[in-house]
Every structure is written in structure tokens, then in C-alpha cells.
């Protein structure tokens, strides 16, 4: 019942929005190349479902591998930076600066570095994009240590790395997941958009550009819907992983 109450309002609003969209397109006689009706997009989605699925899987694999790689590197780098205060002080502004750069713009350069049949360039772009939010958040979490925990571990004569493993890292988990939630959405965007710049054309991004080039707008939109679903799946998967990784949080309510 509680579940239904949580899900029903956004669902109702969503359906209402779609209805309104359909109505505006039909009544307003808006040309399909400007804005196709949801029914037309849905029809295309159904017709091309195999291709959408296949392209979605390809983009999803790129996003997933890149996200894992970027997040793992980010957590390692944050661990190292948290142990070396000087490095941490330097790395945060550098990370902020690098984060402001349009990393997707690296895609054409990376594409030239590898084979045209390689998935590696897109995965590298995703990894770089995913790195920053995870790094910045994890580092913040690692540096926030309760003074009592510090004194307690000192009283146990625990070494720096033991302290990092037993106290800093688990204490930073909520921050890590804040970073991962941001990174998971960004990863999908990066995986899709990096295809716009060439490279292997087997994902959702290339389908969207080619459909648009052929003025098949409802089809382009169908792939956009596929990308939306993919982003949603990544986000939800991170939420589920968060619950599993931090059982002490979900057990609070019970």
C-alpha cells in the first residue's frame, strides 16, 4: 500500500504529461520533424525494439565498464590523497577544473588513438567522466572523521592504513554513493554522446544521429527513449547497490 502511494503520483503525472503532449501535437498540428507525438514514438519503439535493445546493450556495456573503471580509480585516488594532505589540497581544485572541461570533447581524439572497431575510446570517456564526482565526494567523506573515532583508533595504536580500511572507508560510503549516483547518470550520457564523434557505431548515440540524418524523427526519439530507460536503470541499480552496501542504514526504519 505504501509502495503504491509512493509510485502512483509520479506515474499519474507522467501519463498526464504524455496525454498533454499528444494533445498539443494533434490539435496544434505540429510537424513531426519538430515534435513527433508520443504515440508515433511508441509505435517506432515497438517496431525497432530489437535494434533499440541491441544498441542499448552496447551503450550499456560501455557505460558499465567505464563507470566501474572510473569509480575504482577514483576511490583508490581518493584513498591515496586522503593519506597525503598536500596531495588532497592540490587535487580538489585540479579535479574541479578538470571537471569543468567538456570531457566528451576528448572522444574524437581518443577515437583516432584506437581502431575504428574498438569500444575502448568510449569507455575511457565514460571512465574519465565518472571519475570526478566519485573522487571529490569520496575524498570529502574520507576526510570527515569523528574525533572520537580518531582518538579511539589512536588508543588501539592502529596504523594509518588499518584506520583507513576500518574507519575512513566505511565512514565514507555514504559519500561514495552520492558520487556514484551522480556518476551513473553521467556515465550513460557520456556513453551515448561520445558516439556522436565517430568511432564504433553500434550504440544508441549513433542510431540517434543516423535516424535524425534520415529525417526519421520518431525513430530518433525512440532511441532517445531507450537512452532514458538506460539512464534510469543505471540510477536504480546504484540505489539498490547502496542499500546492499550499507545495511545499517536501511535497518534503521525497522
Amino acid at each position, binding site marked *: 500500500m505504501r509502495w503504491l502511494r509512493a509510485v502512483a503520483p509520479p506515474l499519474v503525472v507522467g501519463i498526464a504529461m504524455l496525454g498533454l503532449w499528444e494533445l498539443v501535437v494533434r490539435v496544434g498540428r505540429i510537424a513531426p520533424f519538430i515534435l513527433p507525438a508520443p504515440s508515433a514514438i511508441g509505435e517506432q519503439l515497438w517496431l525497432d525494439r530489437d535494434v533499440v535493445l541491441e544498441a542499448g546493450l552496447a551503450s550499456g556495456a560501455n557505460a558499465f565498464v567505464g563507470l566501474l573503471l572510473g569509480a575504482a580509480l577514483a576511490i583508490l585516488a581518493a584513498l591515496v590523497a586522503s593519506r597525503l594532505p598536500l596531495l588532497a589540497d592540490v587535487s580538489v581544485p585540479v579535479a574541479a577544473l578538470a571537471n569543468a572541461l567538456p570531457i566528451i570533447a576528448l572522444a574524437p581524439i581518443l577515437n583516432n588513438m584506437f581502431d575504428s572497431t574498438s569500444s575502448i575510446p568510449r569507455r575511457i570517456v565514460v571512465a574519465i567522466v565518472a571519475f570526478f564526482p566519485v573522487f571529490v565526494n569520496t575524498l570529502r567523506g574520507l576526510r570527515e572523521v*569523528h574525533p*572520537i*573515532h580518531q*582518538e*579511539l583508533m*589512536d*588508543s*588501539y*595504536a*592502529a596504523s594509518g592504513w*588499518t584506520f583507513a580500511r*576500518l*574507519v575512513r572507508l*566505511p*565512514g565514507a*560510503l555514504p559519500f561514495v554513493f552520492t558520487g556514484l549516483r551522480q556518476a551513473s547518470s553521467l556515465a550513460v550520457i557520456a556513453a551515448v554522446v561520445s558516439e556522436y564523434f565517430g568511432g564504433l557505431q553500434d550504440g544508441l548515440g549513433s542510431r540517434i544521429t543516423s535516424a535524425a540524418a534520415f529525417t526519421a524523427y520518431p525513430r530518433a526519439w525512440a532511441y532517445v527513449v531507450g537512452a532514458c530507460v538506460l539512464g534510469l536503470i543505471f540510477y536504480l541499480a546504484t540505489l539498490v547497490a547502496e542499500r546492499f552496501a*550499507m*545495511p*545499517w542504514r536501511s*535497518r*534503521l526504519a525497522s
Partner: protein
Amino acid sequence: MTALEVSGVSKVFNKGRRDEVSALHDVDLVVQSGQFVSLIGPSGCGKSTLLRLIADLIQPTSGTVTVAGKPARRARLDQEYGIAFQQAGLFDWRTVRRNVELPLELRGVNRAERKARAEEMLVLVGLEEFAGHYPAQLSGGMQQRVAIARALAVHPPLLLMDEPFGALDEMTRERLQAELLQICAKTGTSTVFVTHSIPEAVFLSDRVVVMSARPGRITDVVEVDLRERTEATRQSPGFFTAITKVRRALRGTKAAESTEPGGPAEPGVSAEVLADS
């Protein structure tokens, strides 16, 4: 046997700088095995600093600290003491049992023995049913009991406590005081207990060490002889006499220069002190 010996200890923070603070000046303190000693005094008298010096969390500017016959640093590395603070400081991500196991884990005790020892400690503090809970699922008093169990897990000869019941309500506080005495008696642990509650210090201690501020020093030591402590102790005449003694000692820290100790002003002072509370 002496559990703890502090001799000629001074602590100056920010030495040689403009904001130099003399936190402790020439402190001597001996705690015999199995004794319960409270440190009491106004804020800033250095009682927490003294506790941290004993724990080797900070180092004295001069003087020596000996715990269980070893220099403080060696004693810390050997986990010769357990420590508990005003906040329980439990690790949210560990279950109650795994929190108690932590000091054992850092000592390299194997899994089976860790578990057995943690469960023994949880029985001692009456929380054996909560072994699988997470700290956030417990009340403040229960969390503090877990912290005590954790401090005792390695069976240290010395227990250091920094206002461990300071954040609890009066009823929980009194119950935990009685429990703590039972535990200390059962395990034979010596205890140094920082507090600013006079009744708490008197109820728990064999000796109450009275300190004063600027610079932090020991001004008086009140021996409390109440024998077995029960709830009735809190209403006994001996309890109130000891409270008055401690209170007078605390008051005396300011008036020491002007009033002759034991002089004719004594009844007047105690009346004044009682009216004051």
C-alpha cells in the same frame, strides 16, 4: 600493586607561542590496582587532559606516566587500558558485537575467540540480545553500555572514562553507575573516571581527586569510605558527608588562600555550600 602512576606531569599547549596555555602543572597521582578514582573540577581544570595523558593520546611537556608498570606509550601499544568517552563513538556500520570485537581484531585475536569474548562482554553489560543490532537502533544508554563493553573487551587492567554518562538522563545515569561498579568489581579493573558531577564521583569512587584551573592542578584528594554501594547508599549519611567534603574541597580551591582549612569558619562554609546547590 600500582595500576597507574603519574609523577610531576605538566602539560603546556602551544609552548613558546603567544597563545601558550598551561593545562596541567606538576600533577602527581597514584592509583592502586582495583581502585576507582574520579577526577573532578571546573571546566578547564585539565581533567580530560590528564586522562588523555594517561592514555598517551597526548604527551606531557614534563614528567612521567606509568601504566601497569610500563611507560604510557608502551602501555598504549600493548592495550593495557580501555577507554570510553562522553559520546559512545560506536561505528555505525558495525553490529554491536562487531563493535565490541574491534579492539580484539586489531590485536589479531582469531575470529572464534573474538566472538566468544565479545559475547561475554555483552552479557556483562546486559546487551547479549542486541549483538546483531546496529548502534543506531539502540538508545543512548545502551550505546554507552556497548562502548563500555568495547573498552573492557581486551580485559585491560585499567579503564579510562571521560564523562561517559554525561549525555544521559539522570535515571539511566544512576543505573549505569551501579552497573559500572559491579563490572569493575567483577573484573578487578582499576578505573580513572572524569566527571563534573559530585554525587556521581562520590557514589563511584574510592578516592575523589579534586582539581582546579589555571593552571590545572590537583588541590585535594577526598577519600570516600562507603563500602558496598547500593541504591540505599545514595540516601546514606556517609554519602552526604562525602559530598559535602568534595564540595568544600572544590570551593576551597578558590578560597584556599584566604581561609584557614579546618578553622572556625567550617560550619558556615558548609551551610553556604549547601544553600548554594
